[in-house]
């Protein structure tokens, strides 16, 4: 049970860009120092560091695994450090670990950082990593599948069952990019938001995915400081309190992931997390949804009851989830809007959840934001973790 035990009290982030000259440790210095300074704690108050494992960067993962970060940052009060890898669900698990560290007395304040630099990885290594990660090497990979194809199959099934039009599906990117255009940390900050027509006119990668619906691999990083809810209250500053959580495991191999069971799991995790938090879906001010691909957002909107069955894609097409719409949704634009930083997209989304609850989201600030529903998922969708956060307990 998560209700009211921990809170995010400090956040840090660097802009998501393609910047090979900015090293991974450049990013880690910046985001860690920002988060600690934002929390109001001193560097020696950080008693544990739980790293979000960087994908496709084995050297950094090894350095973090073997305890380098507290030493580099000079955290003199640090008692322990570790790394956690569950793909896109890594950050959720880092937060769970932080909760345990704090509850057990192992640490009072925990730093959770992430950094990714894709732009210095050899193209062939990047392609090879993303082609094989999360795909079964006996029963799937030899057929020539890709993440894009896996997501395209889900989208085709959704369109078959709901009658959603390709234009409606394409409008999800327009919605996500409308938020990204207002986000200084997005790769697409201040860039033209593609219309649905522009998305549809871009080349078809695999049905029904167009080039403008795919992700741009970027560099970036973010971090957060977590303390107990009791300590957060004593700090007398804006914070994001974890109020509820629920999770469902689907399958490690995509072929065993049934469309309907996934949709049911997305729904159940939402219901259970909100029940633990003691809030209704009508009280959620921001749906901070992480799907990595635009085309799965309508499925989530329907699973959560935000849109009626069969109308998720149409809601996006009507602009209801766009910047200025009546349903604040993925206010950093998820991976298609932010730029894909591997497991770091979910870290950035938790940072955004905290930013919104702290009232620091600038132009994207959701008015009077009291409750945020945020999910993450690992790998190619092996699970879904739903969480509810509030600005007070």
């Amino acid at each position, binding site marked *: 049970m998560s209700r009211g035990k921990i809170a995010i009290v400090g956040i840090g982030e660097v802009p998501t860009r393609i910047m090979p000259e900015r090293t991974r440790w450049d990013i880690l210095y910046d985001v860690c120092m920002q988060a600690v300074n934002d929390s109001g704690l001193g560097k020696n108050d950080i008693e544990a560091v739980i790293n979000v494992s960087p994908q496709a960067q084995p050297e950094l993962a090894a350095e973090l695994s073997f305890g380098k970060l507290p030493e580099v940052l000079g955290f003199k009060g640090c008692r322990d450090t570790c790394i956690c890898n569950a793909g896109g669900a890594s950050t959720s698990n880092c937060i769970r670990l932080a909760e345990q560290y704090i509850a057990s007395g192992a640490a009072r304040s925990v730093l959770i950082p992430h950094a990714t630099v894709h732009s210095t990885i050899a193209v062939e290594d990047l392609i090879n990593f993303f*082609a094989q990660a999360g795909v079964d090497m006996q*029963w799937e990979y030899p057929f*020539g599948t890709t993440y894009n194809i896996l997501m395209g199959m889900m989208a085709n099934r959704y369109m078959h069952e709901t009658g959603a039009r390709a234009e409606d599906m394409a409008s999800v990117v327009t919605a996500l990019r409308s938020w990204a255009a207002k986000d200084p940390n997005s790769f697409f900050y201040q860039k033209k938001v593609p219309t649905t027509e522009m998305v549809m006119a871009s080349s078809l990668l*695999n049905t029904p995915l167009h080039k403008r619906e795919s992700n741009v691999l970027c560099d970036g990083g973010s971090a957060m400081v977590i303390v107990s809810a009791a300590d957060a209250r004593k700090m007398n500053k804006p914070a994001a309190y974890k109020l509820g959580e629920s999770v469902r495991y689907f399958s490690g191999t995509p072929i065993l992931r049934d469309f309907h069971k996934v949709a049911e799991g997305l729904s159940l995790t939402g219901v259970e997390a909100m029940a633990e938090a003691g809030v209704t879906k009508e009280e959620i001010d921001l749906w901070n949804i992480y799907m990595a691909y635009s085309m799965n957002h309508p499925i989530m909107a329907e699973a959560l009851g935000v849109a009626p069955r069969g109308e998720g894609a149409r809601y996006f097409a009507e602009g209801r989830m766009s910047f200025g719409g009546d349903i604040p949704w993925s206010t950093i634009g998820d991976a298609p809007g932010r730029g894909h930083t591997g497991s770091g997209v979910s870290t950035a989304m938790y940072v955004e959840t905290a930013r919104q609850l702290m009232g620091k989201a600038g132009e994207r600030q959701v008015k009077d934001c009291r409750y945020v529903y945020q999910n993450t998922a690992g790998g190619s969708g092996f699970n879904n973790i739903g969480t509810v956060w509030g600005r007070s307990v």
Partner: protein
Amino acid sequence: MDINFDMTRPLPQTQPWSEKFWEGTRQRKLLVQHCRKCDANIFYPRKFCPECWSAELDWIEASGKARVYMFSTAYDMVEPKFAEDLPYTIAYVDLEEGIRLMTRIVECEPEDIHIDMEVEVVFHELNENFHLPYFKPVKK
């Protein structure tokens, strides 16, 4: 930019308990692992039955008939080693024996492929050891 792509066609990375499946494909048979204790049909093949943990596992020959559950046709952005096959369609198909496979749909135009389409197995030879089960439309 000098990029050295691995163009080696990937072969299935087998386990001892899946060898029989691939042996079957060499004989143009689509085999499904079957638990003699709980009667479950199993995919993918396991060392122990995932339903009851029995080691009493056997094989049945599938009819080879299936229906398309979902699919996506690739036109671009696949690994270079698969690019020469473009366009190609990846699908999940539901066998009559109650299991779901990943496959390719072949011997038809991509625009003719649809969900619930009736298909039947054909075998695509990767090398002398491995024949991938592809599926083609059933001719009415």
